[in-house]
C-alpha cells in the first residue's frame, strides 16, 4: 500500500528566509507522481508543485522547488524568500491506482 509521511507537524521561518518541508513515501509503482499542496487559512487546497519520478531534474515553480531523492523515497519542498502569504498547511501527496494518499501535513508559519 502507498504511504506518505510528513514528520514535521509544525515549522516556522522568518520572512525572506528559506525553509524545507520534509516528505517521505513508500510505493511499489515503477513510475509515479508526487505533489505538494498548500492550504492557507482560507482552506482552499492549492497545487504548489508536482514531480514525475522518471524525471531526474527537480521540479521548480518560482520560489518553490523540490529535492527529489528517488532511492531514499524522499520528496522535500523548499520555499525560498518566504513570504507572509506562504503561511499555510502543506500536504505531500501521491496517487496510486484510483486513490490519492496524503501526508498528515506540516503547518508552516512565516514570521514577519
Amino acid at each position: 500500500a502507498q504511504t506518505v509521511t510528513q514528520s514535521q507537524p509544525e515549522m516556522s521561518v522568518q520572512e525572506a528566509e528559506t525553509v524545507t518541508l520534509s516528505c517521505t513515501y513508500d510505493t511499489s509503482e515503477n513510475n509515479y507522481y508526487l505533489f505538494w499542496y498548500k492550504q492557507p487559512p482560507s482552506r482552499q487546497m492549492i497545487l504548489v508543485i508536482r514531480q514525475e519520478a522518471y524525471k531526474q531534474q527537480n521540479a521548480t515553480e518560482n520560489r518553490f522547488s523540490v529535492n527529489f531523492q528517488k532511492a531514499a523515497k524522499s520528496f522535500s519542498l523548499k520555499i525560498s524568500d518566504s513570504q507572509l502569504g506562504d503561511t499555510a498547511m502543506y500536504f505531500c501527496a501521491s496517487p496510486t491506482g484510483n486513490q490519492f494518499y496524503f501526508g498528515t501535513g506540516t503547518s508552516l508559519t512565516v514570521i514577519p
Partner: protein
Amino acid sequence: EADIYQTPRYLVIGTGKKITLECSQTMGHDKMYWYQQDPGMELHLIHYSYGVNSTEKGDLSSESTVSRIRTEHFPLTLESARPSHTSQYLCASWPGHQGSPLHFGNGTRLTVT
C-alpha cells in the same frame, strides 16, 4: 483553471436536521471524492466515486451518504446532523491520469449546534 464548486461555503444548523452538501464539477472527471478535515488536521477520505452509479465508503467511517446520478454532481447528505459532524468537508475530482493533480472545491465549513 479547474472548475469544481461546493455550496454552501458555510453552514450552521441545529441537531437533527437533514442537510445536503453540494459538489459539482464541469471538467467531466469520472472520479470524485469527499474528504473530512478538522482545522489544521489531516485529510480523511469518507466517500468516493469512480463514475455514475458508483459510490464507495472511504477510510474514515462516516454517517453521511453520497449519490452519483450525473457525472458532474456528487452531493453528500447527512440524514440527522449531530455536533460530532462539525467539520470542514472538501470535495475533489480527478481525471484519473497519474500526472494530473486532484482538483479541490473551496470546501464547506459545517457547524452543528
